[in-house]
């Protein structure tokens, strides 16, 4: 077992040392770089044994961040495209707000979503079925969407702005609707748009402050890789924390390779 009492998860006695292995490890503590080695070894072990608990956490992480990414792409890309094309009074203000949104501290977003969804909050008190409840995966998705869509929108806007504006005019003149022309320009700017999605993904897969607050880091239900990492760090299990971090990084590395493939295909 990785966390939690040995008694509760009886299935994996061989990894008890991971948690309580403090005495044994202390001899090697001279150099902290050992922790990193230990972490790499443990990560390999966990993956090799397809540890069911780790697999569950990975699944939750992917489900939460995947859903959040889809939603924030669905919001961010159109918003970014619109801001890239349109001119209106106050546009600069909106853009500055968007940029500020790129720097929303996850804790603050978490707190905000918490206050909204709380039983005594304006949304939570409605108890409506469509409102995600606190300490569920739904609430985590909401928080992550808020965190990542400004990044997606901001970079999409920059990418779209980089496309020669007369291309759009030429397409319009070929009978494209506004919508079709926008799609075509987004396709031209796909390199930047894909980077925007990658950045959005990066911002949420690694995010911890918000999911901790609104998800509650509940074992077996809302625990994700980042909150598990924090937990293990808090417990002083650095090498286990590093093992989980390596799994997280491999995941996002794999997703990025996939996205680059996609990018390569369309180019």
């Amino acid at each position, binding site marked *: 077992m990785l966390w939690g009492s040995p008694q509760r998860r009886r299935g994996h006695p061989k990894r008890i040392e991971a948690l309580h292995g*403090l005495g044994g490890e202390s001899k090697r*503590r001279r150099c902290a770089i050992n922790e990193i080695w230990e972490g790499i070894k443990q990560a390999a072990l966990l993956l090799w044994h397809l540890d069911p608990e780790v697999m569950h956490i990975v699944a939750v992480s992917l489900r939460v961040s995947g859903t959040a990414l889809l939603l924030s792409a669905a919001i961010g890309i159109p918003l970014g495209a619109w801001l890239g094309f349109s001119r209106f009074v106050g546009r600069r203000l909106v853009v500055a707000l968007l940029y500020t949104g790129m720097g929303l501290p996850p804790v603050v977003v978490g707190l905000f979503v918490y206050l909204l969804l709380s039983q005594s909050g304006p949304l939570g008190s409605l108890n409506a079925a469509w409102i995600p409840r606190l300490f569920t995966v739904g609430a985590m998705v909401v928080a992550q969407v808020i965190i990542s869509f400004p990044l997606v929108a901001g970079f999409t806007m920059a990418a779209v702005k980089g496309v020669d504006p007369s291309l759009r005019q030429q397409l319009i003149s070929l009978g494209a609707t506004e919508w079709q022309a926008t799609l075509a320009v987004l396709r031209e700017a796909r390199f930047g748009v894909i980077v925007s999605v990658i950045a959005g993904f990066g911002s949420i897969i690694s995010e911890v402050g918000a999911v901790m607050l609104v998800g*509650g880091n509940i074992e077996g239900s809302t625990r994700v890789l980042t909150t598990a990492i924090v*937990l293990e760090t*808090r417990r*002083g299990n650095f090498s286990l924390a590093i093992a989980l971090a390596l799994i997280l990084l491999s995941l996002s590395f794999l997703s990025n390779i996939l996205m680059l493939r996609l990018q390569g295909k369309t180019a």
Partner: protein
Amino acid sequence: AAPTSAPRRLILATTTSTADSGLLDFLLPDFEKAHNCDVQIIAVGTGQALALGAKGDADVVLVHDPDKEAAFVAGGDGVNRQDVMYNDFIIVGPPSDPAGVRGSATAAEAFARIAQAEAPFASRGDGSGTETREKAIWQAAGIAPDPRSTWYFSLGQGMGDTLLFASEKGAYTLADRGSYLSMRGKLRLALLLGGDRLDQNPDPALRNPYGVIAVNPAKHPNVQYDLALRFIDWLTSVETQRRILEFTVGGQPLFYPNSAAWKAR
């Protein structure tokens, strides 16, 4: 409850010390099985745990700060507060012990020596029960340390981080025994006051009692009040209390039972 129906959800807001030590994982499966429910642990600081309760987002809280607990009940947010267990605080510091804390009779005396020597001291500074206790000890020693001084560091961090800081900086700190024991291998810190086991702790002022409180259903109609009451009954029952004593790390218990039922046993 029939075992076939979907388990109910009981949200327990508690401190990181109880959750991270593994105590709850050790105890809870019995309760969950008996009542067909799923106890979901939200591990946060005492302050945040009480705030979660005050908003009706938790059904029951398990914390360690008697003053704040009293305020919580007095404010109408909680009902049926019960003693559950206690552990104790200890003073740790660099093994060389430059301030000569070893051998102090009380925590107040030890703190006075630290202040005298202006040896580095790390305070959690996060409004936790531990910090509240630290403040009380300083007061008993008649000292008001200034965070701007060169030796007193107010960190605003959890216990683990504070211990790491103290280890790096060669500073003293007040810690709960459980956290120190679980991190001992990572630290260059020696236990200077508190004895090897709780029963050898020379200063009764270092006791750290935990209380459980149900969130007031009159204020928050959505809470699982009946389940919360059953949880409190179960937690304070003699059998569970005995299990608390059975939970050991490195051969010694981390918590000692303390409920009314246990004491009346």
